[in-house]
């Protein structure tokens, strides 16, 4: 075959050169050469790209900062909203837990009927221990009715209006409750103190009481139903020359956290005053 012109020859040579280079490249024979040739190019491009990026950031940063500040403010507002929501939910959980415990208590005492009430304030005088609740005679409350929580005895209603009532706590200095100690079955009297604590008095000197013994209402005196938990003995004072022992009592109810209480409405207190000489 005769080659017609030098141009055709040039094309064929070029084609063969390209094919040869491609074959060499595909075979990996050109890698060292390309590495040597491309390395300065890559370095130069990297340098250029970095500088360009820096310039672009410098020029566009104010708008980014504003956007970031705005986003930051939005996220802070969102965090605050979620924190408020968490606090509300925690509060609701606590309330549900208390209500659930009160419900359990009411179910465990089917012989009693209860009216629940919210504590709306304490007595402004620091010398006496009373709280006010948001239920009154319109809800069937009467003077003398016992007030409890799921933890134990709170006190009794001292005064009632149509829509509110005043509860004398068992920690009030004038409060005296006849109690029974478990397991010794001894009788005693629990009295309130000015310090907001309660103390046990009139325990027979020969009664075998121990710290940790339970203090329950005895029902004597007619002011409270029997077998309501009052507290637990925390310390005993016994002197041989005295007729009675005394003891300090840890109340079952946390009076500083009193929120919801239950009034036993089917208990009629007995007024023993006419029988006293």
């Amino acid at each position, binding site marked *: 075959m005769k080659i017609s012109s030098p141009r055709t020859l040039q094309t064929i040579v070029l084609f063969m050169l390209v094919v040869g280079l491609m074959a060499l490249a595909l075979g990996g024979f050109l890698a060292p050469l390309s590495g040597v040739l491309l390395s300065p190019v890559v370095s130069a491009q990297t340098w250029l790209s970095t500088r360009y990026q820096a310039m672009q950031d410098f020029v566009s940063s104010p708008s980014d900062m504003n956007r970031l500040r705005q986003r930051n403010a939005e996220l802070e507002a969102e965090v605050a909203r979620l924190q408020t929501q968490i606090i509300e939910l925690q509060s609701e959980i606590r309330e549900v837990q208390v209500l659930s415990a009160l419900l359990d208590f009411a179910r465990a005492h089917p012989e009693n009927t209860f009216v629940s009430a919210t504590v*709306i*304030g*304490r*007595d*402004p*005088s*620091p*010398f*006496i221990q*009373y709280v*006010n609740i948001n239920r009154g005679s319109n809800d069937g409350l009467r003077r003398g009715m016992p007030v409890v929580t799921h933890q134990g005895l709170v006190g009794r209603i*001292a*005064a009632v209006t149509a829509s509110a009532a*005043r509860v*004398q706590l068992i920690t009030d*200095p*004038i409060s005296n409750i006849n109690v029974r100690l478990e397991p010794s079955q001894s009788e005693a009297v629990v009295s309130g103190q*000015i*310090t*907001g604590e309660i103390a046990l008095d009139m325990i027979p000197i020969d009664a075998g009481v121990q710290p940790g013994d339970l203090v329950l209402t005895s029902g004597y005196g007619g002011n409270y139903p029997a077998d309501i938990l009052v507290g637990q003995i925390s310390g005993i004072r016994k002197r041989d020359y005295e007729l009675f022992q005394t003891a300090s009592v840890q109340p079952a109810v946390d009076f*500083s956290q009193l929120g919801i209480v239950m009034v036993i409405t089917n208990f009629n207190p007995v007024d023993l005053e006419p029988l006293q000489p």
Partner: protein
Amino acid sequence: MFQSAVASYIPLLHGTVDLVLLALIAWALQERVDTAWQWALIGGLLFSLASALPVGVMLLAYVGVVAIAELIKRRVWQIPIIAMFVTVFFGTLLTHGLSVTALVLGGTPLPLFQALNLVTLPSLFLNILLAIPMYSLIGDLAGWLYPVELEV
């Protein structure tokens, strides 16, 4: 209401601040105010409604406190802060003294030394601590209700 729902829940030992007393004294010590006696009666009645203390006790105590404030205002009115402190001091002692007397006469077994140490002295401290903010607040209120008349 605030006294019963909030202030009574923030004790120092077993004493609490008496906001009604502080407001009454601050009001009575204002120069242009002459309605302190009426507010003493209102404050006493409201306190009696919220408290199990005998009705007349706080009424009497607050009227007595206003009497002390009026007396002190006439003597040392040029230094109202000192007048406030002195009145709060004697006012707290008067209200607590009358409360304890009424309770003891009513048969409440109150150990007096404990009552002084655990209730009266902490209450006195809290009342004196809050005397200046209350005086400032009531002063602003009095200035708003009784503006100074300017001669043109």
